């Protein structure tokens, strides 16, 4: 199973590398939105921690929706039939999930670099925040992968993807923003403990649901 997952990831990676524009287009999207934030706040800049954290995650969310909505788009109908005989749905959804996670965490670090360069850096403990970026990228891509599989079945899916994903991803995003707000200045395990447990619980729920529900979706 693991071997097959790696095969799909490798194939996706090869397609993206050969086309090249996919990663850079989303990175450019993020950078230009960061630049808009930077310009709109003017010379004063962001002085407030809450604004900094919230804007950062909102920018990440927009980038994530743009990138993950394409994760099933390149799969043509004929290739889907081909997959149908080769892989189980579990292998397919997990490989897409892992690929999206790698993609999104790269994007997160690019965005974080530019964001702290332009808007300013409030982070006291870089090590925790970098670790937390991975967690955030995983939670967001985990939730959005199933939704992108759903919206891929609809014909005009660019609008549907954002309509479906915004309300559903909000609990996860709120927890991410909450944890970052607390941990940015002085990290203390006691303060973030409950939020982290809740985040883990949500991730497990979403993971199990995507495994079960995708097999039904895939059969069509």
């Amino acid at each position: 199973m693991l071997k097959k997952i790696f095969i799909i990831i490798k194939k996706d990676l090869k397609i993206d590398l050969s086309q090249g524009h996919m990663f850079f287009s989303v990175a450019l999207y993020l950078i230009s939105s960061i630049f808009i934030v930077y310009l709109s706040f003017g010379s004063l800049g962001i002085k407030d921690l809450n604004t900094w954290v919230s804007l950062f995650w909102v920018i990440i969310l927009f980038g994530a929706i743009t990138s993950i909505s394409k994760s099933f788009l390149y799969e043509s109908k004929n290739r889907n039939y081909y997959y149908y005989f080769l892989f189980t749905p579990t292998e397919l959804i997990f490989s897409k999930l892992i690929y999206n996670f790698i993609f999104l965490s790269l994007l997160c670090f690019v965005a974080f670099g530019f964001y702290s360069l332009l808007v300013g850096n409030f982070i006291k403990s870089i090590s925790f925040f970098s670790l937390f970026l991975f967690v955030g990228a995983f939670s967001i891509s985990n939730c959005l992968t199933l939704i992108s599989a759903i919206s891929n079945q609809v014909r005009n899916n660019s609008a549907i993807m954002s309509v479906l994903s915004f309300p559903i991803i909000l609990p996860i995003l709120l927890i991410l923003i909450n944890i970052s707000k607390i941990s940015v200045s002085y990290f203390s395990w006691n303060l973030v403990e409950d939020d982290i447990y809740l985040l883990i619980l949500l991730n497990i729920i979403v993971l199990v649901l995507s495994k079960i529900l995708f097999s039904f979706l895939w059969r069509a």
Partner: protein
Amino acid sequence: MKWIKIACIILLTYVTIAGFLFDVPELPILNEAIRVMFFHVPTWFTMIFLLFISALNAYYFISKGTINYDLKSREYASVGIFFGILGIVSGMIWAKFTWGTYWTNDPKLNGSALSLLIYFSYFVLRGSVRDQTKKAKISSVYNIFAFAMLIPLIFILPRMTDSLHPGNGGNPGFNVYDMNSQLRIIFYPAVIGFILLGIWITKLRLRLRFLNQKN
């Protein structure tokens, strides 16, 4: 089926009369406004109950593949959302008189508004697919996923932060300690009555829909 209607009419008549006329305990801040509890809280209970049945029917559709389950799932969701809107409106009117504003940035209010948004997008999803079986399959999957994400949104997230809402953050309200027998004898019938009303409305809508489908 008949007992649902009779029980619903009797219970709701009793609740309407008793809810406005019976004595209620005097609590600080709330005073007479506590009477909204007999109408506001049961509508939320009804919404959760109907949405649960909707998700259950979505699951039945996925496992058995009969299209009727999908229709049931849709109707239960739409009536559930109707009760959710009633809950939000009654809560807003109450908030205007108690807090002085229709809407505040409160986790409970935002959670309830978001749950409505999730189900509105469910209807958008249904509207955007033409083919009936495909529509049923996609929307059932989304329905189950949405209901699973609704639980933390309504039950867990608001409890992790302080809230203005009665029953949270030391505000007097509807929690176990303040709920005396005076309130209970109206509140429990109200919950059952509103749930029965929700089921009744859904059954009527389903009958209409099945008839339309036959013709």
